[in-house]
């Protein structure tokens, strides 16, 4: 059974076809082939959100999962992210949650927040 997918690795959005032997076509780059196989076996996503910051130049700080997490875990990851409160200052790359839900993935800050007294 052939499956048709749209690659989400980059904005190019390649139209991928996977045949019954799990052979991928339509991909512009190798990432597309990996995406197609992953998507049919264990789909994953990067999750981006914000966490609360106290005493900062902004009241929230943007964060992301340092690598993709299983798609079915997205809402559980969001619950963990929503429990966190940081104190300014925050720097890009700071670990906000270490090894979230034992998925071997950290939640890291993606912007700098300055301390404001």
């Amino acid at each position, binding site marked *: 059974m052939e499956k048709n997918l749209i690659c989400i690795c980059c*904005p190019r959005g390649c139209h991928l076809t996977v045949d019954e032997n799990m052979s991928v076509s339509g991909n512009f780059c190798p990432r597309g082939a990996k995406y197609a196989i992953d998507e049919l076996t264990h789909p994953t*996503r*990067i999750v*981006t959100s*914000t966490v609360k910051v106290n005493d900062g130049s902004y009241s929230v700080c943007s964060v*992301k999962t340092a690598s993709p997490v299983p*798609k079915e875990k997205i809402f559980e990851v969001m619950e963990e992210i929503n429990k966190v409160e940081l104190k300014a200052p925050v720097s890009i790359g700071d670990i906000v949650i270490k090894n979230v839900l034992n998925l071997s993935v950290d939640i890291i800050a993606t912007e700098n927040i300055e301390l404001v007294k």
Partner: protein
Amino acid sequence: MRKVDLLIIGGGSAGLAAAVEAYDRGIRSIIIIERGAELGGILNQCIHNGFGLGEFKEELTGPEFAYRFAKQVQDRNIECHLLSTVTSVTPNKVVTYVNEEEGSVEVEAKAIIMAAGCYERNAGAIGVPGDRPAGVLTAGQAQLMINKFGYLCGKRIFILGSGDIGLIMARRFTLEGAKVLGVAEIMPYSNGLNRNIVQCLNDYDIPLYLSHTVSQVIGKKHVEKVEISQVDEKFRPIPGTEKVFDCDALVLSIGLIPNNTLLSDIGIKVSGTKGAEVDQYLQTSLPGVFSCGNVLHVHDLVDNVVKEARIAGESAARYIQGDLHVEEYDISCAAKDGVGYILPQHISGSDYEKVDFKLRVRKPTQNVYIEFIYNGETIKRVFKGVIIPSEMEVISLPLSLFKEKKGALEVKLTPKEVNQ
């Protein structure tokens, strides 16, 4: 009056990349005027990932991408004025900006790079029928509220328009606990990137209603209901197809418009993109004034913005150094059958060996050639299996293809014939 070599209007991705390029080509007297409180422009509120694959070969979020460029500017000690708004540009290239500390300041620049980005079409622009309650806002506004200030604009949200920001926000609202009831798109196809349909709507089972629009907003003080209807081929709502959603917010993602009035106000020629007309140097009809980024035409990828901005930065540096030659060529470029617009609108000099042509098609099309016809002769054909309006095409052609150096270039879509 203060005098500088280069003044850049806008400190977003375009302005920053242009500033770095001009600096690295020897220009030291540069100032950037930025309206926001930080450098990076709209990227700072685009916290999703997917930026920078072309530029950095890795997937970054908007704030991370912005930071890398802001740092390049700071490392070069380029002067930036934040929370400062440009109020006018004169034909003599005197720029007035205002801010809280300096008041109103006039600066005379040898060259100006316009990099002021774009703004969102709003409810007034499309005449949404019905009441005028609170809770109707643009996707960018909703994005700013949640991603920079932590406020969610509603609990049950309907989205009109399937542009990328609308799709991204559908996912964002869902992750933050709101229910997104659906996305209505007046066209028979989405205006967003394919990957965003997949990972923002399909992943979360959010319905996309193609060929539908909002036919009624209902609510006394706040949005209470939104009614959508299917539209006919002339985009008129078809009676009897109404669907009503109980919701407390209507979010609009219905298009972006170049923020080009500072230039159009002084008679600089405007193109079909609503940005300035430019040559391959990205120079406008006023010599010494250049334009790049979303104020020139709306981009879908920041990588393309950066590439374009570097051309503007190099061209402005050359202009200031007396090394920009515009005389040798004089070719007009026009978009024909199936092509919505083409940039640049003309070709002037020969300082660059290649011309980056950028175009968008009018509607999704399959199995076509993008055909470049110069003085009646086809000089280049590029085959496309699928081509869609939401993805800008960039085709780079050597200047040597334009042998006569004068005349007209037309770019059109030609169907690929069967059995060919």
